[in-house]
């Protein structure tokens, strides 16, 4: 093997490792910004592409414009005075763990899955200032793409696991999205699995990434 070939292989390996670090950091940043309603910063984590896609338990958003509509209009940024007033008492904290990250052999994309244990605390100002303290666990399937040399979120599906008031068994509550929130820009596609004693747990939510060559072609092929 020539010295240049060795250098190329080292560079390839390093690039993959750097991509994993970048994807891991993107998910971490997403979590911290989400808790603090730093929604402008979240939008910056996404690729500026028409084929961005975000699917959530309350609906879906297509393209970068859809991502902006979700985070800047449906959720809102803390710099907006109305939002700042509305998020008093709100702590939406979704931690990120149990990662599986696969970077494509062509180094252009990455696929990942994560679990998230979390809690949602908020004041329902549509219902006599009722305070909610809820466990809120969920799962993420995420595709990342390299855009202008930087890794970005490309597709994200948030699968609900359970949400239940403190002290309430999660099997007793099948509602994941509170009616206290309106998501006016969300499309109809949504993730809505909930625990049911008569149903098998889904086999592929999230899909566990396997090694792959290009975004559309697996290594097995």
């Amino acid at each position, binding site marked *: 093997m020539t010295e240049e070939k060795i250098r190329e292989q080292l560079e390839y390996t390093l690039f993959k490792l750097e991509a994993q670090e970048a994807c891991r950091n993107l998910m971490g940043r997403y979590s911290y910004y989400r808790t603090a309603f730093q929604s402008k910063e979240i939008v910056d984590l996404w690729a500026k592409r028409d084929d961005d896609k975000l699917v959530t338990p309350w609906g879906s958003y297509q393209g970068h414009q859809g991502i902006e509509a979700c985070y800047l209009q449906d959720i809102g940024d803390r710099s907006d005075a109305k939002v700042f007033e509305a*998020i*008093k008492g709100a702590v939406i904290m979704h931690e990120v763990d149990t990662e599986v990250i696969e970077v494509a052999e062509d180094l252009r994309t990455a696929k990942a899955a994560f679990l998230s244990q979390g809690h949602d605390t908020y004041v329902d100002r549509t219902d006599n200032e009722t305070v909610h303290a809820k466990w809120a666990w969920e799962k993420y399937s995420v595709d990342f793409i390299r855009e202008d040399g930087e890794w970005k979120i490309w597709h994200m599906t948030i699968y609900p696991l359970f949400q239940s008031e403190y002290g309430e068994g999660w099997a007793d509550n099948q509602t994941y999205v509170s009616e206290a929130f309106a998501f006016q820009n969300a499309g109809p596609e949504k993730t809505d699995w909930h625990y049911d004693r008569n149903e098998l747990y889904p086999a592929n939510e999230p899909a566990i990434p396997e090694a792959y060559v290009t975004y559309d072609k697996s290594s097995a092929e």
Partner: protein
Amino acid sequence: MSRTYEELKAGFERIEAAQACRNLMGKYSYLHTAMRNIDFMNLWANREDDILAMPWGYYLGIEGVRKCYLEDHGDRSDPLVQASPIFKGGMMMHAMDTAVVEVAKDGKTAKGVWLSPGHESCYIPDFSKFPDWKKGDPLPENLEIMSSCEWAWSKYYVDFIKEDGEWKFWKLRLWPIYKTDFYVPWTQHPDMDEVDFPFHNHKALPEPNWAWNKETVYPADQPEPPVPYEHYEDAVPELWKSFV
């Protein structure tokens, strides 16, 4: 693409550094639960500018770190700890997740943040009723000892530094998120207070810890996820300015 061998070496070292920092946080967690605080001292840089900021106060320099872990807390080998009705029965577990780690381009320092779901179990009195009590003191007579099983979720901002070729803790800030009895929602739990802890070697925090309140907005900078940087001296976190 097309990096030189020197650039590749630096790149691999930064990957190794990120994992070393994650490992340090993992070791911190396991050692803390087992009260292996002598071992924990080995994870810290031997420097006078170390900062350890805890929910009850902060400690400066490696001597401050030693006072926190070996005097205020005590190692499991310490006879005072072994004889203490307070420390026996203690099980403080703080898991680590949601990491964002940035290693400086110069490879000398790193910054990281973590969230931590955790729980604390112990048998304790209400320390606020006798604030001068410290490890080794006899407990007042007729003291009511309460069983305490609490959720204790927290979050960390940490600076790391490479010292003699090894990554070490340099500056660590721990914020409480919720600390609440198993049967009580965090929204109904009283705020954490310095006198809840029987420690005496710390300096007072420059400002009170954030605590949930229905009229308070969650802070955006506790912690602030690190962004890529070249040299630490050009990117010193604002956070440390008040810990002097």
